[in-house]
């Protein structure tokens, strides 16, 4: 650094063989650039997964669940009350004004269950039964089944099909935090409360599901008798992250798979042919990444 470039000096001591001072910094910079790019790619993938790819996942889950529920409805074995296994299909939901068609409602409102479709809240009666039934659904990811729910108009039809028949509800209003709750339904009346998250204000609001919105719909007539209810979910919040041990364990395993896939890819890249590494390795890596994302997304709030 102290060397004056305008004058040549003769070294009389040992020659300095270390790399020129700019070089190391250069490498750090390039490496830093790569890390930043990799980070950007990773975040980009996660966003892509959440906003686009997860919808395919729900679509697939819905197809499977629809088949299952259809069979159960035909056989009369669809659930009419507790106990219902978490994640099992319980009802079919139609909201014509929002273009929601034959959506399978599953049991439970954890993030994991809402990845498959709207979830029936444990502890409330099943849709169509006497009392209040709560169904929650995502607004931003995984097919965003309830994305348009905040725009629903009073009087819109909501049709639910369960083992007990088809039930038609009419929307009576939309509630946010602090709005008065409607009085509990009287004898023989049924109410369906649909829950999702929504943003406020700005044009970015679609990407900012920051508060819950409740849509109440009253059963037109003919509530079915309430079946036994399951115990309420010990963690009732829908817009908070739940970190449970099972998900963490699964995530750890999935990350191991991803690491393995990446290691294999790198090995093939260096030792085998690069083209072959692309063809054979890339799908494996993407699949592993998908798995990690899917499990990682379970740590996010359920309504997002």
């Amino acid at each position, binding site marked *: 650094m102290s060397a004056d470039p305008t004058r040549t000096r003769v070294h009389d001591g040992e020659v300095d063989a270390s790399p020129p001072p700019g070089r190391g910094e250069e490498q750090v*910079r390039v490496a830093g650039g790569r890390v930043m790019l990799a980070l950007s790619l990773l975040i980009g993938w996660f966003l892509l997964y959440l906003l686009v790819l997860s919808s395919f996942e729900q679509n697939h889950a819905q197809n499977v669940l629809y088949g299952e529920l259809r069979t159960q409805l035909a056989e009369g074995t669809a659930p009419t009350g507790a106990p219902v296994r978490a994640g099992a299909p319980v009802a079919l939901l139609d909201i014509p004004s929002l273009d929601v068609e034959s959506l399978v409602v599953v049991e439970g409102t954890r993030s994991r269950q809402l990845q498959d479709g709207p979830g029936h809240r444990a502890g409330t009666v099943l849709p169509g039964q006497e009392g209040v039934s709560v169904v929650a659904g995502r607004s931003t990811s995984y097919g965003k089944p309830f994305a348009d729910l905040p725009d629903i108009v009073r009087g819109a039809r909501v049709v639910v099909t369960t083992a007990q028949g088809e039930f038609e509800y009419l929307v009576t209003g939309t509630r946010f935090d602090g709005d008065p709750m409607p009085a509990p339904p009287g004898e023989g009346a049924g109410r369906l409360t649909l829950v999702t998250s929504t943003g406020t204000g700005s044009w970015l609001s679609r990407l900012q599901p920051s508060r819950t919105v409740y849509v109440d719909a009253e059963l037109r007539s003919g509530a079915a008798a309430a079946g036994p209810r399951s115990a309420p979910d010990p963690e009732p919040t829908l817009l908070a992250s739940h970190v449970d041990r099972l998900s963490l364990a699964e995530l750890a395993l999935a990350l191991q798979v991803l690491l393995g896939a990446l290691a294999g890819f790198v090995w093939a890249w260096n030792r085998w042919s690069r083209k072959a590494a692309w063809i054979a390795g890339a799908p494996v890596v993407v699949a592993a990444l998908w798995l990690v994302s899917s499990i990682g997304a379970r740590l996010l709030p359920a309504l997002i």
Partner: protein
Amino acid sequence: MSARRRAERILFALAFVLGGLAVVLPGGQAPAGAAEGVTKSVTAVRTFIDADGKETEQSRDKVKLRVSQTTNLRGRQEIKVSWEGAHPTGAVAADPSSSDARNQEYPFVLLQCRGVDTDSVAPKGQVKLSPETCWTQTAPERYLAAASNTPSWRFDAWAQAKDRQAVVGPPADLPAACSSVSRLTTERWLPFKAAGGTTYYGGPDPGTGCMPLPPESDDAESGGLPSNTTYGITGKDGKGSVDFAVWTKAENASLGCSAKVACSLVAVPVVGISCDAWGTTLPEGTQLTTKAGVPLTESQVETGDATCRRTGSYEAGEPAASRTSDQAVRGNLWWSASNWRNRITVPLEFAQTAEVCPVESAEKPLELMGSVMLNELTASWRPKFCTTSSLYSFTHVQQAESLARSLVQSGEIKGAFSTAPQPGGYQRPVAQAPIAFSGFAIAFSIDDGDKQRREELNLNARLVAKLLSASYPAVSFVRNGHPGLGDNPLNITLDPEFRALNPGIDERSTLQAGAALQIFSSNSDLVWALTRWLDADPEARAWLDGTPDPWGMKVNPAYKGLELPVDNWPLLDDYVAPQWYIDDNACYRKSPTPYLQLVANPLSGLGAIGLNLQFASSAAATVCRYDGYDATTLPLRTEGRQSVGYRFVLGLVSLPAARRYNLRTAALQSTSTVATGQQFGDAAGRTFVEPDTTGLKAAAGLLAADDDAGTWVLDDAELATAKGRAAYPGAMPVYAVFPTSGEEKATATKLAKFLCYAGGAGQVPGQANGSLPAGYLPLTDDNGFATQHAYLANAVNAVRAQEGAVPALEVSGKAPTLEKACDFSTAAAPVVEPAGQPGGGSVVPPAPVAVDPAPVAEKPVVVAVVPTTEAPLSLTSGEQSSLGRVGLPTLLLLAVASAVAGSVLRWLELLQGLLVSARSSVRGARGSGGRRRAS
């Protein structure tokens, strides 16, 4: 080395700043636009293109527009629009919203248009905004024709080829009527697409059926509204401002704006046509032709080019004279692509109206009646009530308070809104709960001597008494012939008293609108409060009793000693015009009525007065016109709209209506220290109070409990004290008169809920539905309504219990709270009644004088009334998630930021190289000049 390090640091810092912004921005954006209005700007450029394609810039204006309110708008509401940086206007017209103003040079055109301004397809259920969805009122604004082949609009460089033809936009089938109308060489049709789907073409002569205009195009004379299209005048400093009345579909169904149908305010700064006479911007092979298809000759093009390049034949600010203005910069070309592309579109959001309330429902809406003072309030509360599930639907029948009071008394309606006390008290136990505090206002639309709109006016009670009592003769034959008005000035502008208090207004001897105050013919507490003020004012009372004013003006003998207050101003003068006038005036001859009654011409309702004041229409019905009317009937017509610069109308309105329609309101005199009988030349010694929050708040301090009335009344005697001096004399409290016996449980609960709302959420000022509109003083403890608040809680209990209790005006000891009284999950608490009258029965008979007394008469004696309870009102406990709010946008920004930072770090050399080469190429290119248009 250090430079590179710095670059890295800057990049990292940028990434952090951007990330930080993402966290902060979304939270702060939402409420900003709501209250503050909207500011937008545009750079408007006019260019000329020569035959060889060379382009020269003629002008460049950076225009900034500000709109005061764009959300929660209501019909006919006026919003303030101001702009700066626009080209100064020439050939200035007197009235910028008249059709003639379209011929101004460089006006700043403001239009209300339906639709969403977008480059792509409009969202579902909306239309795309275009000049064809913008409202203009008259045919010449929708149809332009020229006798030449080369009007400027054909040379518009920005217009598409099809819009530069000789005839543009004619209807597919011209009606037969058009064949009789002469058609010019070039035509430009600008059809209006109405909300219903009909297209109105306008055209050369809509009167003969070629072709019709929308029905709302009728002028104010035939009941329509004047145009709101404004050819705004920009001053020499580039600034201008105007009040723009926005219309909902109630005012203009063809335009059809509502809470559901998107509309915008579109501002088009007219900068003139960007000329391209030689068609260099047209597609290859296209030529400008005549109507017959013959290409324009070179000389035609050159003449047209010269016309198109004109920049105005008037100086900036010069009033319009007989010579024509330059076509290329005229306001009527606002739709031309050169002007339209510079438009600033401000979306308008209209408040939901009571239209959302179901017309038919199982439950009949609660019918409340009375006070026109509450029109604005119930317009805001009704949509809120019927869309809130814990509330209900109600209607407000705007009828005379006196009628409403007697109907409540007889049990025919469930509740009344009233200000004045019921004479002799109610023959039925009622609670009279204060729900609003506002006042009457004397609104005016007056132009000063310098033709500018006047913003301030001082009126004392005597001047108002003079206007009301037909003491200004208005015309000379009345003054000469009338037995009692011989010495009086013809109208208020000639009255020395008015001139002393309001210097700067021209004297006008032919102003019939200045001889009377516009007032309505039906009974109203608004008139009651006004006449109460006249009665309490020593000068006005003495004058009405016959003492002449210091200049010798005397009261019309017909009104001498008139008993006040009244809730309906009587028309007492019976002087009929002399025979020569009857012979002269064919309309008057049909029905010779007392002339000054025609000048006063009381209107049917508050709405009509508001409309007249907003658009400066005189109500004096003394005009005889033969046009268009059957000669056998020949009715007398009102004078109608006054021309801008010469406006003078005065009218009695409610304060909230004045605020909504942006009417100027007069300051009223609270007290005077000037010796009676002494002439004066200025306002010294007199206190005039504006009807603003301060004036109303001071007036609230004068409310005194009146046990006979059962309410608080304004103590007029206090106006003369130091405390009362600042009080607005027109202040009026409004009471909800609700029965406390004989109503069913369900009705009683509804009435109680109304009071609960009125005492809580309904007193929060705001523009949104459900809040308190402008013009009302919130009934809060801070504004001095603590006693009234306690009464309200007491009243809620009384109304809920329906046991015939009459709440006490003053609650001694522990006052009940509204929160507790409005908790419908518990039974109503006992009512605090006036001391010494346990049960309230000794003063007021508990049984109502009802038409059907059988079921209700026994009610108060029933010992155990089932307490009216409801399920506890619990509130939704929604969840909030800050992760949800910032998570995705932050991730998105982070991804972008790290991608940018990463690529810069990774390929820094490459970028530097590129930058250096780009810089050198720019340097090389400069000088060889010539920029081509991108389009």
